[in-house]
């Protein structure tokens, strides 16, 4: 017997990812690894993240996690990006441990985006 591999949060975020898309003129990071293709874009004002968007090719957990991460980072200080960790998102979404590598691609993208913002300033 197989249990539902997707939590209620994953189902909700996958069905309606409000942060899917791009930010015109924003900083952009693209990564491809671990059966995931991800493009993360963000905009900031005065040291604070204004908006985050993503595009993702990957399993439902990746899409749901990308949505959760984008949502969580809006309004946070830019300095948070470079030290960002996806552990809480993985736990909240009940991502199977076998998919850790895929979700870490999102973490890498967020940290790279933070570096981009720092390099720009």
């Amino acid at each position, binding site marked *: 017997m197989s249990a539902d591999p997707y939590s209620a949060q994953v189902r909700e975020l996958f069905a309606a990812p409000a942060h899917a898309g791009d930010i015109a003129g924003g900083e952009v990071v693209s990564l*491809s690894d671990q*059966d995931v293709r991800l493009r993360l874009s963000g905009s900031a004002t005065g040291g604070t993240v204004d908006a985050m968007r993503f595009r*993702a*090719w990957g*399993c439902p957990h990746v899409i749901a996690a990308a949505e959760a991460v984008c949502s969580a980072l809006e309004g946070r200080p830019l300095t948070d990006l470079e030290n960002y960790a996806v552990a809480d998102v993985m736990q909240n979404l009940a991502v199977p441990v*076998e998919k850790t590598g895929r979700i870490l691609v999102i973490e890498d993208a967020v940290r790279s985006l933070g570096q981009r913002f720092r390099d720009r300033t």
Partner: protein
Amino acid sequence: MGDEMIYLDYAASTPVDPRVYDRMREVGQAAYANPSSTHAAGRLTHAVIAQAAKQLGGLLNVDPKTLIWTSGATESDNLAIAGAARYRAHRGKHIVTMKTEHKAVTDVFEALAREGFDVTWVDADSRGLLDPDVFAAALRDDTQFASIMFVNNETGVIQNIEALGAICRERDILFHVDGAQAVGKVPIDFAALPVDLLSLTGHKFYGPKGIGALYMADRPGCHVDPILFGGGQQRRIRPGTLPTDLIAGLGMAAEIAAGSIDDDLAHLAHLRDLLWNGIREIDGISLNGDPDGFPGILNVSVEDIEGESLLFALEPICAATGSACNSKIQEPSYVLRALGRTDMQAQSAIRFSVGRPTTVEEVEFAAERYRAAVARLRSLAPEAAA
């Protein structure tokens, strides 16, 4: 039609026909004695089993005495392959099968290889068909056994069992056919086919789970060593007390199939064509298998779509991915990889399989849902690297 579950996974399993349930309930209450007992109650149970054998024998057009009851196709495959290979081992240890067989076959061959048998794995062409000349070229003087499936469980491809079996007969090689996806679905006259051993299971054709059979032709040299021990039932080939109600259910399912198989096939072909015509215009879509294969199965891949997300986005449609469920991280299907599909094509594959209860409305909904899911996932994805 919205959140209601739509079952399009009939190649995985089928619902039990209500007439089968009725028969099982009736038998479960009336014929509860051990069929090996010689008293009146035992004889009653024995008669129920004999009737089921007659029903299944009628579907296959074989002598009911050539049927051995098992727990399903996996056990039948194990008994046929391991049993026949070991029975013939003193004459030679070369055995042959295809790369695209079900795991219930390939895993037994791998186990036999570890025992010291020499296994040749023959290739299918890009549609999944085995060329009889390719098969013949793989045979050797010491080949004693070959196993080829009738209808492929992933693609629906139908092998030329008559030609392959004839090649085996010419060379006195025991020939086993995994018929799990064929029996009860495709009209087959096994009396006219050069097949020595045939595996089947009840739950693929509206019978109960947990019951299957192995047909073993009544001809010299055709025999298997047992793989289970513990009693004298079924000529010591497969000991154990027989599950009378399940056997009666399988027998009823066989009788129903025998009377409806032509209508079923026409129904499935109509639905399969409707589904394929509803999605075939999608950019990058391709059919996995042979267009002339079993019409109950439609296996399609689509470029640049992640398979797990596609299956998830198809809900409430219940279909199967082209991925092997061997791990929690899904791997591209070894069957589709063997047909030359790329990892990308194989991982995006979805197997839709329709059945007797499937309706036109369900299939039209599935086609619409598939088109929408592909469009949505493509809109979410970044461009692929050049």
